[in-house]
């Protein structure tokens, strides 16, 4: 019983990380480094909450969250792809702008109780003991996160379009010479990343904690960014990394309480440090193998591209 409850909490905490991280993975695979995940996520959160309030439908809210993130990412796309601005600086600016703008847009929604997105039980499967209620009685964001992992994995490594996208990320000059439209593909990849970040934001304001408060993403966008590197740009590893991070974060809360029961004093500061320590350890282990790291890292990541040069 308690184990089931803990697993449900872990899923809710990990889902936004996985979704936002998957979007950024596609963006980076196309060779664009967008550090604005936090900003796009919070825009998604405020957009989703506002529209859900105005229409009364959390599902329209989710769509609004996705659209908010995608539209906001277009600003980044225009600055870095069309105007060839520095991607790192623009991404940081996008985060700062998103945090400020969302606060302003959401001011009238503070303190209003949110509409929670209901769970959808999948017939038959949700009746399986233990696994059923955990995996098949979930909200739409969880189902979408799993679909995204499968879909992105298939797209990147099994389709022609995915191959082109990876080619652009590895060497935009060669891809351009082959006649692939680098800028258009990158625009689409940036918007996909924005849409995913927006969906993650919608999960925050409609499922995780159904409310709107300023800065409610609280750094999750940055964790999602780190997860992409952690996963060495592989979708499945994003899923594993996201859940590892989420699980350690929830486990440390329970460890505090259980420790109290047995009179064991584990410093809370140490416990809340654990998810980050786990991330560092895994990163070190992964980077042991230089070859696979190099193969997966998009070689043109963050480099500006001007088509007619």
């Amino acid at each position: 019983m308690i184990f089931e409850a803990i697993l449900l909490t872990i899923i809710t905490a990990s889902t936004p990380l996985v979704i936002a991280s998957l979007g950024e993975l596609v963006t980076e695979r196309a060779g664009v480094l967008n550090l604005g995940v936090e900003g796009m996520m919070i825009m998604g959160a405020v957009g989703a909450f506002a529209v859900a309030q105005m229409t009364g439908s959390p599902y329209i809210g989710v769509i609004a969250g996705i659209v908010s993130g995608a539209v906001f990412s277009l600003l980044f796309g225009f600055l870095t792809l069309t105007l060839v601005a520095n991607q790192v600086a623009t991404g940081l600016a996008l985060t700062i702008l998103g945090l400020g703008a969302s606060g302003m847009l959401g001011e009238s929604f503070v303190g209003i109780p949110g509409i929670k997105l209901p769970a959808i039980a999948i017939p038959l499967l949700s009746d399986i003991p233990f696994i059923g209620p955990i995996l098949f009685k979930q909200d739409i964001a969880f189902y979408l996160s799993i679909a995204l992992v499968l879909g992105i994995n298939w797209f990147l490594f099994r389709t022609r379009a995915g191959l082109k996208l990876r080619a652009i990320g590895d060497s935009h000059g060669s891809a351009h010479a082959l006649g692939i439209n680098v800028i258009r593909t990158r625009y689409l990849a940036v918007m996909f990343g924005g849409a995913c970040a927006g969906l993650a934001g919608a999960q925050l304001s409609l499922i995780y904690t159904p409310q709107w408060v300023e800065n409610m993403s609280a750094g999750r966008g940055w964790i999602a960014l780190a997860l992409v590197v952690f996963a060495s740009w592989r979708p499945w590893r994003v899923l594993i990394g996201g859940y590892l991070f989420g699980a350690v974060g929830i486990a440390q809360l329970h460890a505090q309480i259980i420790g109290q029961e047995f009179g064991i004093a584990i410093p809370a500061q140490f416990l809340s440090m654990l998810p980050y320590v786990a991330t560092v350890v895994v990163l070190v282990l992964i980077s042991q193998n230089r070859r696979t790291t190099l193969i997966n890292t998009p070689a043109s990541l963050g480099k500006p591209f001007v088509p007619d040069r």
Partner: protein
Amino acid sequence: MKKLLLSFAASAAVLVGAAVTAEAADKTKVCFIYVGSRTDGGWTQAHELGRQELEKALGDKIETPFLENVPEGPDAERAIERMARSGCSLVFTTSFGFMDATLKVAQKFPKVKFEHATGYKTAENVSTYNSRFYEGRFINGQIAGAISKKGVGGYIASFPIPEVVAGINAFVTGARTVNPDFKLKVVWANTWFDPGKEADAAKALIDQGVDILTQHTDTTAPMQVAAERGIQAFGQASDMIKAGPKTQLSAIVDTWGPYYIKRTNALLDGTWKSEQSFDGLKDGILTMAPYTNMPDDVKAKAEATEAKIKSGEIAPFTGPLNKQDGTPWLKAGEKADDGTILGMNFYVEGVEDKLPQ
């Protein structure tokens, strides 16, 4: 382009939330530094309401610029210094973490007066002000002791500073006046503000069997989780009844307005001097949200306790009280002095946590 954008980003960071109004030479400036956003629904919003009350009361003589979302740390010093430089006569710095920054800037601007919330360091031109939050938490504890069937409460704590520790102790002491076996489980979220993490902490406590919840973090997320899981909870800093109409028992509400008016008046008539203010329920700096969702007898008792604290008949930390390990702290009838409360660094009996040092 890169440089341009970087400077854009930097100036945006400073400008976010800055609302320094144009200078009007004849009006005295009373300035505020906020750690969060003024619509956070909790701590900073309470200070903002206080500022608005001040503006309403003395708006013809003063103006009240503020800076919000000022992070604790090196940035705080810059923000406070900017305020001092812009001609403020009195600056309220409203978070514990602004303590050292406030003192540093105060040294550079000896003519400007500063007031730092919840700190303990003063200077010739630096006062501190604090609220006896623990009085409200004692009443909450009494309610919890009466309502909780299992006799196990959950407490979402932020950081192990004296104010939070005193809150935990007051809550469990209050609960034990009703149910001597009451136990309190504590989870440190290590944040003041992160709805997701606060909700996770609330879920963890409920999963581990607590049937009443209270928080010392700033968002309404724990209240929402309590509502969803069907247990009852207390709000913090602001009335959180909207997040849990059937869930909130009461809330401790910060009402800084009267203090801000009092101190600004002192500044205007030249009687301002450095002091350490520590007001509570009786001074109106702390109020209780309506007692809701509880039986009438529990409500009556809570109201009676509130009246007795106001009249000074009882004090939350009155002996006999033992420390967590069972060693005596206060003898029967003995009351804790303010110094001990302001620097509280130990638990009383009934807290199951080990205090992080």
